[in-house]
């Protein structure tokens, strides 16, 4: 379609993801979910960078977190898609007890 040519690359490639926070992260951020708009092709690692820029207090605790994309554990290199649900998973304690 002709109209496609006039959409800017930035607008076309933007992905909107929902990020969920739990436990110590939730308390640090002060919210249990926040939506982020990221450039197309952004990875989980890129999201974390954006996240730390917006919530600097989370930096000390984010290093120990795992990540889930759509409720599956995912590597930081995972590319995000529009509508994905990303969760920061702080360490779970139960392994020892």
């Amino acid at each position, binding site marked *: 379609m002709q109209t496609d040519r006039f959409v800017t690359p930035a607008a076309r490639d933007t992905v909107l993801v929902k990020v*969920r926070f*739990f436990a*110590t992260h939730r308390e640090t951020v002060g919210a249990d979910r926040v939506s982020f708009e990221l450039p197309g092709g952004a990875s989980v690692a890129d999201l974390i960078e954006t996240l730390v820029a917006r919530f600097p207090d989370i930096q000390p605790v984010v290093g120990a977190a795992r990540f889930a994309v759509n*409720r599956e554990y995912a590597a930081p290199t995972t590319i995000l898609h529009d509508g994905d649900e990303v969760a920061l*998973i*702080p*360490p*779970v304690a139960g392994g020892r007890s």
Partner: protein
Amino acid sequence: MATELDRRFQVVDSPIDAAAVMRRVQHPGNGAICVFYGVVRDHALSGRQTSQLHYEAYREMAEEKMTEIADDLYRRWGIDRVAMTHRIGRLGIGEPSVVIAVGTPHRKLAFEACEYAIDRLKAEVPIWKKEIGPDGEEWVE
């Protein structure tokens, strides 16, 4: 949606009905049922006294992960009689936070699979606990 089968893997915010968890693994071929209760105890890992625990879950993922663990029990051992319920919210000492039941024809496998299930649950299922005691509150990591 809410069939008895679905209810085998649950995150609940009220006291766990352990008898109901057991009922979900009833089967005439069971010769053994192993039931594990994780219970709030009075001394935390930190060594500090605890008076309450607060549990928080990523509920949707927690229930999916429990289902995955059950799938693995089936793949490894052919076990299809397993149920797990984890409670969230505030719990006092002596209250169960998690109950897992496994039913099998013979006892050795019931123990092995039940221990496997709770080990996996503790490592993978996104549920966190905060110790609340006379000295303050702290998330346990």
